[in-house]
């Protein structure tokens, strides 16, 4: 009998970075050019069929962080991991993502996370340099490695790699795709 796992994953990031579009693309294979802001949280389910088990990803698409809306940390209760989303064309959203990462770590400890830089289709408008990204990747992965006996750790995901969800038991689930919600999954 195939084991069924269910994991809550939260999408975090500044407003208008594309969290909702990524989830919609991932779950429904649909992309819309129209920007529609999220109020509160939108919850979707994505079933991923692995060879030996089925995983239901319960995706909490949380309202974007800004000056008015601040993340309700209680929304992360029970989360198995989270995806930090930033917009490559808006460097300030990377700062927001890193700030959220700190706050989540302070409240929930080192949950698995993935930093995802969205809008790779607007690469010509990107304002985050490759050098800055390389430094960031080293910093995040390095920080995770320095913690002993931690099976959960984060990574930096950039470019044409798909959203990666690392489960509590350390097994990665990966769907092929790009960081742009426009791209085919």
């Amino acid at each position, binding site marked *: 009998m195939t084991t069924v796992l269910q994991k809550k994953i939260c999408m975090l990031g500044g407003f208008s970075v594309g969290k909702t579009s990524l989830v919609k693309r991932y779950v429904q294979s649909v992309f819309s050019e129209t*920007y529609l*802001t999220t*109020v509160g*949280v*939108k*919850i979707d389910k994505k079933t991923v069929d692995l060879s030996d088990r089925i995983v*239901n990803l319960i995706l909490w698409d949380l309202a974007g962080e800004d000056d008015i*809306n601040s993340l309700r940390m209680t*929304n992360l209760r*029970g989360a198995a991991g989270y995806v930090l989303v930033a917009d490559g064309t808006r460097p300030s959203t990377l700062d927001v993502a890193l700030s959220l990462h700190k706050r989540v770590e302070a409240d929930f400890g080192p949950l698995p996370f993935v930093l995802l830089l969205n809008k790779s289709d607007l690469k010509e408008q990107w304002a985050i340099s490759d050098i800055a990204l390389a430094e960031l990747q080293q910093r995040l992965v390095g920080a995770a490695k320095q913690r002993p006996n931690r099976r959960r750790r984060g990574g930096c995901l950039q470019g044409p790699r798909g959203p990666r969800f690392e489960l509590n038991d350390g097994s990665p689930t990966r769907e092929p795709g790009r960081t742009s919600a426009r791209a085919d999954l």
Partner: protein
Amino acid sequence: MEVLPASLAERLRELTYNERAVAYLHVDAALTLMGADGHLDNYGLAAVRLGEPVVEQVYFLEGLLPLEESSYFVPSVELDSGRAADLHFHQDGATVWVVLLDVTAARDAARQMQQKAYEMTLLQEKEVQLNRRLESLNRDLEAANDFLVTISTKISHYLAPQIYKSIFSGQKDVAIHTGRKELTIFFSDIKDFTATTERLQPEEITFLLNEYFTEMSTIALKHGGTVDKFIGDALISFFGDPETKGTVEDARACINMATEMQSRLAELNVKWRSAGKNSRSACAWASTPASATSATSAALTAWTIPPSVPRLISRRVSSRSPSLDI
């Protein structure tokens, strides 16, 4: 707590139940669904099965049960049905009540406001980014302009000031074309220059020529002449291009220039003589129609003087006494 009149309390209960589409789930300690009722269909929960694990049926409860505190609230949760609900969790002994209250209308109103605020902020961010790009482009343009200024300054040393000015001010086109114009052409050279050079060291010759040409060019420019070129010890200038006051006035200006040149040369001769150098010049001029052409190359545009003119001028120069004749 104040108690509401019974009829009012009942009305409020009805209003809340209907307007907020109240629905509830009752979950036991083993996370099994014990009970469910109310407007379940409003939230896509009409098919829930009692006696079965609740989290498998109501997936948005994943991670939220069992409760960490007795009372807990998650605002504005958009569910599969598209409706938005506030989720209220209430611990009741070993069981938990999950109450759903519809807040779709409030969510939509908040979204409208938030959408406008975000769009405004995005526009402001875009403006800042565009301004930065504009500043960067301006810096590039300034750098390019500085480069052009440097180059044009260097070029200016190889062009007559009038020509330089007329080209770089945009008055004169440098396109390839042929034209015809009446110019007063002036020619002068230093008498017995070859013999003089044999007596002097190269550095002395350079010094003498530099001073001579500097002085003569200054006088030419003062009178509106265009210094065309230096050939060895010869100076050729003309009047009538790029600015002209008419053929007669141009010729008059040329005469005045030549007179002043001779006077200045006399002064220079005194100076040079005391330094062991002596020099005299002869000059002549002629007014003639001249044609300007690029010949076969776009590399150079210059006035081409009909061959008869230099011969005429040359004869005039050689037939006259050097320091006197105009």
